[in-house]
């Protein structure tokens, strides 16, 4: 039996046990299902959401909107972070200018600016994308700078000895060297982007999974709220998987060198 299958089976079994315990507790204790709906009710609500995904309530539209808010937020935020991070790593003058701002940015709880973005950009996708981008920015920025600085002295000497230009040294040595750091941050950033998009929707929206969660909460439909949480988690997981897949393909060498270093 493969390791993967074992993990999956163990997970399935633990899920059954936990779900069963939850179900039993909800039914036996008589707790109001507004507070804690039993899993059976949540599954029912989930089925309702799935039925209405392309049906009358068209939940696919909410999913699609949240999806592209996350994706665009992620791309804008981490893309900017890689570019700014590269400039900061390469140019001292840029570093001097940018560093105070990045410190200020990191000190500000980004969620707090969500209402401001709604004032500025209205109720469309724009403020959500920007909040997601803002939250994504920092981890990717920091790891880009760290990663580009992680080249070894001898590697730089080699590039100098073959008369590689600064540009060539950057693209052929520093950038590939930094990818493990950048990818580690991208995984975090993808999760952060989902947070940003949802926060944005909470601050003011009339569609999206975040809106549906808030809508369900306002009507005390806790089971449906759970159902949307599950849809959101599946979406975030799929996005995360894309990053993890890209990482495995692009960074095939990182795992190999790591295991070699341990020998």
């Amino acid at each position, binding site marked *: 039996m493969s390791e993967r299958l074992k993990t999956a089976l163990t997970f399935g079994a633990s899920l059954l046990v936990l779900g069963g315990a939850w179900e039993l507790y909800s039914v036996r204790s008589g707790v109001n299902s507004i507070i804690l709906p039993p899993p059976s009710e949540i599954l029912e609500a989930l089925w309702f959401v799935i039925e209405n995904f392309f049906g009358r309530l068209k939940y696919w539209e909410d999913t699609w909107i949240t999806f592209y808010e996350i994706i665009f937020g992620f791309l804008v935020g981490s893309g900017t972070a890689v570019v700014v991070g590269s400039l900061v790593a390469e140019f001292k003058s840029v570093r001097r200018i940018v560093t105070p701002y990045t410190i200020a940015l990191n000190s500000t709880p980004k969620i707090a600016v969500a209402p401001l973005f709604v004032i500025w950009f209205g109720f469309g996708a724009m403020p959500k994308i920007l909040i997601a981008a803002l939250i994504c920015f920092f981890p990717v920025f920091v790891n880009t700078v760290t990663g580009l600085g992680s080249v070894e002295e001898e590697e730089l000497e*080699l590039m100098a*000895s*073959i*008369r590689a*230009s600064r540009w060539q040294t950057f693209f*052929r*040595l520093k950038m590939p060297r930094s990818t493990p750091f950048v990818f580690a941050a991208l995984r975090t950033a993808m999760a952060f982007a989902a947070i940003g998009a949802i926060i944005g929707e909470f601050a003011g929206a009339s569609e999206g999974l975040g809106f549906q969660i808030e809508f369900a909460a306002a009507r005390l439909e806790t089971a449906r709220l759970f159902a949307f949480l599950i849809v959101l988690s599946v979406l975030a997981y799929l996005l995360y998987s894309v990053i993890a897949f890209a990482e495995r393909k692009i960074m095939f*060498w990182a795992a190999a060198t790591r295991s070699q270093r341990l020998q």
Partner: protein
Amino acid sequence: MMARRFGKNRRSEPVAPETNSSRSSPGSRPPQPSGATTGPPTTYPAVRIDRVTKVYNEETAEELLAISDVTLNVEQGEVIALLGPSGCGKSTLLKMIGGLYPTTEGTISIDGVEVTEPSELTGMMFQKPVLFPWLKIVDSILLPVRVHGEKRAEHLERANELIELTGLAGFGESYPWQLSGGMQQRAAICRMLMGDPSVLLLDEPFGALDEMTREYMDVELRRIINQQNRSAILVTHNPLEAAFVADRVVVLSPRPGQIAGEVEVPIGKERPDELFASDELNVYIREARSLFERGRGEGGLPT
């Protein structure tokens, strides 16, 4: 095509006649330019080190005199070893020859051209192979031409010849982490030769290898240098390695590095591995070692 010098940072040519008129690859090259058709034969040594001093952190509290007043010539086709204890500045001297560090005082010339920055006339090898794990061996070897915008396909043949020459046949498509330390250094040799340098600068290239592999690589190194007909400077702290590989062993004193003495090793260019155990070589090893240890015992020569 292969003989074309590439590169943007091409330096001013020496006044001397072209020495690389027809360099067949990776084959032999005359140790001295024939000169007969292009003018008078060049009189430039491969490397000329003229009263070179290196001070680190000049005019600060951490000021450190690393190299003091070193004068040394390496003739065309000559292989010398710079032998000295660790911290004597031998690597510093080598990197100054390679144009990686500036000299504080004095000048260094390669084939009559003063060194001010890394040049296409020198190729370097370091203690670590410095192969990028994301590049296949053949692409690591091609790096010196690729960084100058040359087409991969144009140089692939030469790269494969070098792979063949260094006994790496069949490993071009491998990644460095699939190779042993000795094989990785073979790839580093190929990369150094890819740039077609006239002087090879070897900074303890086998220092991180085990003893057996190191000896084997020393044999291979000298074979390759002979076959390619280059001049070379090998930095090492191992008297055996120095005497085995080099035509002349230059012993440096502990810091600040100064020339403590020289030992000629006039046993010809062929250095088969039987030589390691020979009495003949032993004489020179002993001589080099005594110079090496005398300097070390005194804790440096007076400055």
